[in-house]
């Protein structure tokens, strides 16, 4: 049997476990990724992970988080001085910002307009609060999230409509909130709005 044949046979042997009782905890898989602990202990965890479909999914998510996070951390030092540079070069920064906006739009789905409609930034809304957004061409569903002033998620909903009514219990206290919406498109990509701060009185 060559490598491909072995890999196919092996892939068929990896199935989800009936339950996770025998699986290592998330922290143990995290330690494996962070290379913490002794080598024999890590090999033992890895041995299980590679023979368990669900643990492999866990490991892959942690590997992606770790690798992507590490690559992001390789950011050049100029990030810290970017604000100062903007002050110094003034007008040039406006141009740079335009370019960077274009790059962001490219990342998230070229040229899409902001999705969020109402409440607008800084608006004062009364209960019941209705969130409205632009329907997007090709949008299959929308996930809307309401955040408390400290950024903690308060309420979320998924809908195919272009509005959602927030339960009063989620905005029971007067104060500042934020909301955003993500459109999931038919091709599997998504467009997200900015976080829109508003108040409830």
């Amino acid at each position: 049997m060559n490598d491909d044949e072995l890999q196919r046979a092996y892939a068929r042997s990896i199935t989800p476990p009936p339950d996770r009782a025998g699986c290592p905890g998330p922290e143990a898989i995290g330690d494996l990724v962070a290379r913490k602990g002794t080598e024999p202990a890590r090999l033992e965890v890895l041995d299980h992970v590679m023979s368990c479909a669900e643990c492999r999914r866990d490991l892959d998510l942690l590997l992606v988080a770790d690798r992507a996070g590490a690559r992001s951390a390789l950011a050049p030092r100029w990030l810290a001085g970017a604000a100062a540079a903007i002050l110094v070069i003034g007008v040039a920064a406006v141009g740079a910002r335009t370019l960077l906006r274009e790059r962001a739009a490219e990342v998230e789905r070229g040229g899409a307009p902001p999705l969020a409609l109402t409440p607008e930034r800084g608006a004062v809304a009364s209960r019941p609060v209705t969130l409205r957004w632009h329907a997007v061409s090709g949008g299959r569903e929308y996930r809307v999230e309401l955040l408390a002033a400290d950024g903690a998620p308060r309420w979320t909903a998924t809908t195919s409509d272009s509005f959602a009514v927030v339960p009063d219990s989620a905005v029971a206290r007067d104060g500042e909130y934020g909301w955003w919406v993500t459109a999931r498109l038919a091709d599997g990509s998504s467009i997200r709005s900015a976080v829109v701060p508003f108040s409830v009185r």
Partner: protein
Amino acid sequence: MAAFLVQLGGMLVGAPRRWYDWSMADPTDLSSPLERLVTRFARMVRHVGRTRGLSDPDLDELIQEVRIRVWRARPGMIGGLNAAYVHRAAVSAALDIIRRRRRAREEPLESAGPLAGSVGPADATELGDLTERVARAVDSLPPSRRPVVRMHLAGYPREEIAGLLGWSEAKTRNLLYRGLADLRAVLLGQGIGPGSAM
């Protein structure tokens, strides 16, 4: 720019700042170095995630978790929120997602890989038998080589195996080749050799 100057002005005169005064309140505002950091992280997540075959919902969830964490941490970490924080936030967000997933057992995974083509009952039995014998042969490998062989058979590149275990490329290659040789020897002993392919 104007928002930044207003923000800076607020800092200088000690005016109270609201949570949304920070440019990160608008994730599309790339005047914020932090936002650039998170945007770059999101790009990396999608790139790395797709090479590992993770689904878009998994990746979206991770990106959103990290964005929220960075956003939450910002007011208390002025000047201290940096790329290293994003790295830590990413790993802890992934751990939280895994914990939530385990608690909820949201969706059962489909069994790995459907059989290619159509096979009759007799073929399926033979394939099942072969699969089981390969799995058992892998189980019989020495513990020092078995995980490496498993990773290789699961499709992880050698550099990934070496990185995860903190081994040199040479050590990884050596243990992998010896492990695969052991595996083939075990299978050969069971009469599974060239020509036994499915």
